[in-house]
């Protein structure tokens, strides 16, 4: 008798748990499962939703997305992740809820295309608004804003003309005066890839060796940290993405960054030669998008005049649309003569560039 009761008690308990747990979990998945939308979408704007997977910080793109919703009535949902969006898209396959991907550099777009995760977009608007070298030739991705990889130097300690090209960073007179962030960071890798595209692998390897010899300290921190280092006297020159200048110059909460900005002068490398290396933040429509038309509308909005001005000014970047001026602050740094080599050509060399960095041991 006792035996039966004990056995029944235990089994009942376990069975109970086996039921409660999944139910509990399902209740917790109270954030609604992401619906795969049915194939027929109402074409009217109101009530539609476009889903964005973003590599860019939400606060950077939110104002533009809100303006888009105001203009078209289409709502926007965003998921942000620094890493792994590509794997997520690949794993989700046909069931992905994503319509649009927004990235912070072009290497990611190129990788997405190579993985077959994007779909070509036929759009006269986009083709006209984005210069050929800043978009994919098959229309699978488009640059939305532009940033230059410039050299900043201490305004007193570095004489005018000491540095005019990227290659000067490896020159003997720069020994112990250069700071950079990690050589493996995508912004630097893109720059080195463009050097391989222009000058070839061996020349770039020599450059990297020379650069390493000129470093004042091991590569560390982000771009802004290099500006700080110049201000503090650790080094004299650094590589920077142009928009960081804007961020430092307008930082009300951290006025010390204004000081850093104040001690710098801006050099657009290769301005007399092949042009300054640029990178883009870009967008693309996902291959299995449930709402590709809305996705295309979003991209087209982001290259419209109104959005270009807003989007670029938000982050102190250069608009891609010809004819739209960057903000006054950005213009004050000087004229940008950009490298017109198609970004796809540069992206093709990224892997090689990353390997060169390893071979030279730039970060060690």
């Amino acid at each position, binding site marked *: 008798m006792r035996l039966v009761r*004990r056995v029944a008690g235990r089994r009942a308990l376990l069975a109970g748990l086996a039921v409660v*747990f999944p139910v509990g979990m399902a209740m917790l998945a109270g954030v609604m499962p992401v619906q795969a939308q049915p194939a027929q979408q109402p074409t009217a704007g109101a009530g539609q939703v476009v889903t964005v997977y973003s590599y860019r910080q*939400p606060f950077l793109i939110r104002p533009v997305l809100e303006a888009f919703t105001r203009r078209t009535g289409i709502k926007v949902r965003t998921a942000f992740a620094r890493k792994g969006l590509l794997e997520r898209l690949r*794993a989700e*396959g046909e069931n992905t809820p994503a319509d649009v991907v927004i990235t912070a550099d072009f290497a990611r777009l190129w990788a997405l295309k190579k993985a077959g995760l994007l779909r070509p977009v036929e759009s006269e608007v986009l083709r006209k608004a984005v210069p050929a070298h800043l978009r994919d030739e098959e229309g699978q991705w488009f640059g939305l804003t532009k940033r230059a990889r410039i050299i900043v130097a201490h305004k007193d300690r570095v004489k005018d003309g000491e540095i005019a090209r990227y290659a000067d960073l490896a020159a003997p007179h720069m020994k112990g005066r250069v700071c950079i962030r990690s050589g493996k960071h995508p912004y630097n890798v893109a720059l080195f890839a463009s050097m391989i595209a222009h000058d070839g692998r061996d020349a770039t390897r020599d450059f990297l060796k020379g650069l390493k010899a000129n470093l004042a300290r091991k590569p560390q921190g982000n771009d802004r940290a290099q500006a700080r280092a110049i201000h503090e006297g650790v080094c004299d020159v650094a590589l920077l993405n142009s928009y960081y200048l804007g961020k430092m110059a307008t930082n009300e909460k951290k006025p010390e960054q204004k000081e850093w900005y104040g001690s710098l002068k801006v050099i657009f490398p290769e301005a007399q030669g092949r042009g300054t290396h640029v990178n883009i933040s870009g967008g693309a429509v996902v291959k299995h998008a449930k709402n590709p038309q809305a996705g295309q509308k979003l991209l087209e909005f982001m290259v419209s005049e109104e959005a270009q001005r807003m989007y670029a000014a938000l982050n102190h970047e250069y608009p891609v649309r010809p004819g739209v001026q960057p903000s006054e602050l950005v213009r004050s740094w000087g004229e940008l003569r950009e490298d017109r080599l198609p970004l796809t050509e540069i992206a093709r060399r990224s892997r090689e560039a*990353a390997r060169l960095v*390893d071979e030279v041991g730039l970060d060690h």
Partner: protein
Amino acid sequence: MTASPATEAMAAASAPAGRGGGLRLLRIGALVAAGLVVLPLLAVVVMAASFSDALPHLWRTVMPQLALNTLLLMAGVGISVIMLGCGAAWLVVRYRFPGHGIMQWALALPLAVPGYLVAFIYTDLLEYAGPVQKALRELFGWQGPRDYYFPEIRSLPGAVMVLSLTLYPYVYLLARVAFMAQSASLLEAARLLGRKPWPAFFAVALPVAWPAVAAGTALALMEVLNDFGVVDFFAVPTFTAGIFDVWLNMNDAAGAAQLALVLLVFTLLLILLERMARRRRRFDTAGPRAAGRGWRLRGWKAALALAACLLPVVLGFVLPVAVLLMHAARFWQESLQQGLMEQLFNTLLLASVVSLTAALLALVLAFAARLDGSATVRGAVRLAGIGYAMPGAMLAVGLLMALAWADGLINDAARAWLGMAPGLLLSGTMFALAHGHVSRFLALALGSIESGLARISPSMEAAARTLGARPAEVLRRVHLPMLRGSVLTALLIVFVDSVKELPMTLLLRPFGFSTLATQTYQFASDEMFEEAALGALFIVMAGIIPLILLVRAMNAPSSQSETARF
């Protein structure tokens, strides 16, 4: 009609393991639990099965450096956390001094602070442009970096220091429980034989507490191996940094998966070595529990003990939190705009579910291993604890792959039979997130519960069986009450780690679901740590209360008085 105790004992002794429905259920439960946890790992193995030349490339170039850095980091942190954790636990258990009650739980507090924030705070403080060096320069009139020597904080020793400060509580918590449970008779015997207190510690107490210390150290070291934020910030390229580099910068997921597996094998080897080293030793204590009160210290000895305890607490908790408070006071508006309260709720909900699930699974696994000594179950238990040895982001990607594939099957079936697709039920909801966390943190719960189980003498089981209890009943009525402390420790450690967890959460979270950690990270990753401070403080607060509760609960003599009856 009941058989006589003697015959029943003989029957129990000769019965093959696995007899009885409860036991079979336990075994199945253990295998299922291990399987679920291992799922993402399997996916990573699948990922690694594609071609990649990343390994040969790395081998030719930076691998020696990566490996050396990693080994040095592990050695440094390993030694430091053992010293800090055991030393602190010993002081707090065996002695009494003013402030000793507070120190009991205060010493565990650094666990509540995310590692990369501590890293930032110390680099901010101690780097060239930071306040400490600035003050020194003003004081002594030095002009530039070449005028004086100051240790570079962004270096391997700096990383060792920061990691040790945030990870020693693992060893401290487990060692403390072990010391508290140690039999006084062991130490009395040592004293009788002429050993002074400190040599007795090294000769008797520490070796007997070894499983707990080893478990705590193993956890800390796995955190080190897996860490990316701190070493990246400190510019110390480690093996894990290599994994992320290959994955993100070279867009080579297969290569990264291969590297992650190498790391895994290495970790497994270490664990295996450690277990082989203590294979034939017994760690249960047969005598009465240690006397609850320690030796009272007075005068300078008491002050020294207090200072020794205060040091890690101040460096690992008080100082970082003070800096966070300072920043939060300036930037709280920015932080609040982002819906901090909702994130707090999400974080707590997730952490509760994860810790309860992990503790339950760990109990099932540990009991199954104890009762059913078969190699299958033991292997399953070992495998289940491996999730901790893999970088969280890698695990998340593997899990995504596996769950999305399952979702694909579900959706295909639904489309065929129901004409509609329900969406991503597994990979798009909180299920994936919770699954990921549990996979990763099960090792923590297992470590605590297994080391607690190891302290229970088999003679206890034998006695209970002789008295007629079936195996599962023995677990329920004898082991479980004695494991209260370990279960609580498991719950706590997993809770706190889940609150802090970042890379997996970023990748696996559903739409509209953000946690304190993801929010903090969004600011921190742009080196806008000041804006991250308020969110970070919430994380710390979410971890403190469970911490204090736990340590208090582990004080209760109930787990000790059970044996007093025997």
